């Protein structure tokens, strides 16, 4: 019988990591990820988690340490956020290029300057090119379930690519919600530890993370691309199998909610999806044909799936807590490119909001649906709720 708990997103991740039984955990504290590393330290202290828990002096060293442990073939976990993720960036590429199946939790948080500890997704979305699989979750239960799935995806022999599980800072990391735990024995069976070949070996020495010049570099890179593309199927299948075992499933790469006959579809990532569901239900009750496309995975990008889902819509909005200054949101660029690749011609709009922790309200979202339904898609990139008249009392 599964246990029902009332925990925060950070705690859920720590509980999931405990069930995944990593050999090595190395992490450096940063708000709003801190509780993950605190809880994991507690589990090591109380004996409920048997692993090498490393106190490191920086995120750069945290990532480097799990690169070292993964190079030995040890299941390895780290967690970070925001500036910490950026401080790790060099290591992200070492890890993905070396094909080490590291799992990392990232608490999505804004980037300085201006300094801000609150949630947006500019940290992880700035790392789409890092070679990591990027998963985004909507609620605390999904954070738990996806963290367990992440180990399966990363360690799949066809994938062997590190996975970043992203939780919106505070809105998910610090919000308490009901959580159904999974049975430990079933998790053990779902993600059994398996040895891998690109690790160091005392009996038959290996050189890893080595140099590959122009003669071989392209081929190693091509392998990475193939592995990422194969990951798409593995992400879907891992979620399906999880559903069979534990009764919860999230649609794999994407989830289409009320999209079948939808005239206007909003694409969302992360926790805002929940609020958007409420708005979709309300709009539907009023007879408005709107739908929601939740991107659960941004790398690899679900090109064919998104095109298939939105192809009959009249307008699509892409909402993201991110902006590539001077252009548009990174996910919007990807999304448009996916449609173009797939020959789908639907007007699209980019809604940039939720920056630095600003709440995205139901009214914001219903306003977007109304605009999309009315065909107001002339302005491709729109900042939501920019306060042009600043009231310093507010």
């Amino acid at each position, binding site marked *: 019988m599964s246990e*029902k*708990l*009332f925990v925060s997103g950070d705690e859920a991740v720590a509980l999931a990591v405990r069930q995944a039984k990593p050999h090595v955990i190395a992490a450096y504290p940063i*708000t*709003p990820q801190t509780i993950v590393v605190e809880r994991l330290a507690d589990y090591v202290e109380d004996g409920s988690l048997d692993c090498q828990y490393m106190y490191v002096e920086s995120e750069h060293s945290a990532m480097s340490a799990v690169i070292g442990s993964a190079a030995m073939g040890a299941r390895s976990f780290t967690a970070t956020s925001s500036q910490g993720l950026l401080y790790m960036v060099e290591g992200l590429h070492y890890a993905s290029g070396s094909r080490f199946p590291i799992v990392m939790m990232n608490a999505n948080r804004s980037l300085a300057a201006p300094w801000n*500890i*609150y949630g947006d997704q500019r940290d992880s979305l700035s790392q789409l090119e890092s070679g990591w699989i990027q998963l985004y979750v909507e*609620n605390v239960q999904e954070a738990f379930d996806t963290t367990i799935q992440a180990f399966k995806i990363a360690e799949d022999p066809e994938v062997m690519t590190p996975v970043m599980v992203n939780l919106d*800072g*505070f*809105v998910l990391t*610090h*919000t*308490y*919600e*009901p959580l159904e735990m999974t049975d430990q024995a079933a998790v053990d069976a779902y993600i059994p530890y398996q040895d891998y070949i690109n690790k160091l070996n005392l009996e038959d020495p290996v050189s890893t993370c080595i140099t590959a010049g122009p003669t071989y570099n392209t081929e190693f890179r091509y392998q990475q691309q193939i592995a990422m593309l194969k990951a798409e199927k593995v992400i879907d299948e891992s979620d399906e199998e999880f559903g069979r075992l534990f009764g919860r499933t999230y649609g794999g790469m994407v989830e289409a909610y009320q999209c079948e006959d939808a005239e206007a579809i909003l694409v969302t990532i992360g*926790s*805002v999806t*929940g*609020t958007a*569901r*409420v708005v979709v239900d309300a709009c539907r009750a009023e007879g408005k044909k709107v739908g929601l496309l939740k991107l659960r995975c941004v790398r690899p990008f679900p090109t064919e799936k998104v095109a298939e889902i939105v192809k009959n819509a009249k307008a699509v909005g892409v909402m993201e807590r991110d902006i590539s200054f001077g252009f548009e949101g990174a996910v919007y660029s990807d999304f448009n490119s996916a449609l173009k690749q797939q020959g789908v011609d639907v007007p699209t709009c980019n809604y940039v909001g939720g920056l630095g*922790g600003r*709440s*995205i*309200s*139901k009214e914001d979202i219903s306003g977007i649906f109304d605009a999309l339904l009315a065909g107001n898609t002339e302005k491709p990139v729109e900042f939501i709720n920019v306060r042009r008249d600043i009231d310093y009392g507010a």
Partner: protein
Amino acid sequence: MIEIRWHGRGGQGAFTAARLLGDAVVCDDKSALAFPSFGPERRGAPVLAFTRIDDAPIKDRSDVVDCDCAIVLDETLLGAPVKAGLKPGAKVIINTMKPAEVFDFSDCEDCKVITVDATGLALKILGRPITNVPLLGALTAATELTSLDSIYKAIDTQLPEKVRAKNKTLLEETYNTVKEAL
């Protein structure tokens, strides 16, 4: 959906109360979200915490704008933020020795003020002026959102073992005090 707003100062345990309430209603097979006003507030600074309660799983993650109930852990916090966004018929529970009549909420439609000397009760039972659990007792007495039994269960999972028994006593005593007064 029922939305509760807790007004406290950093260190008073407003968020713990929000969490205990959430956990308790989850024990009742309802759904709940509990979250603090996120931020780097230090001890003593005014803080907010929220509990959202519903029968169905809660998906809405936008900020709480209007609330069904505002709970004030310390009467010095009374002011505009407490009055903001009260739904018609909202309940305001205030930790004070004064009677409810002295608090003017006439500008809030059908608002009902309930007062309780939570500090006094806490000093008597805990020996410390920690008012979050007694105010949860007062809220339960005033709203019956959950039961004392469910809060006991929540206390068992959310609070450290050594403070559980006294907090349960304090909870019950405040609950009874408010019930009698109503």
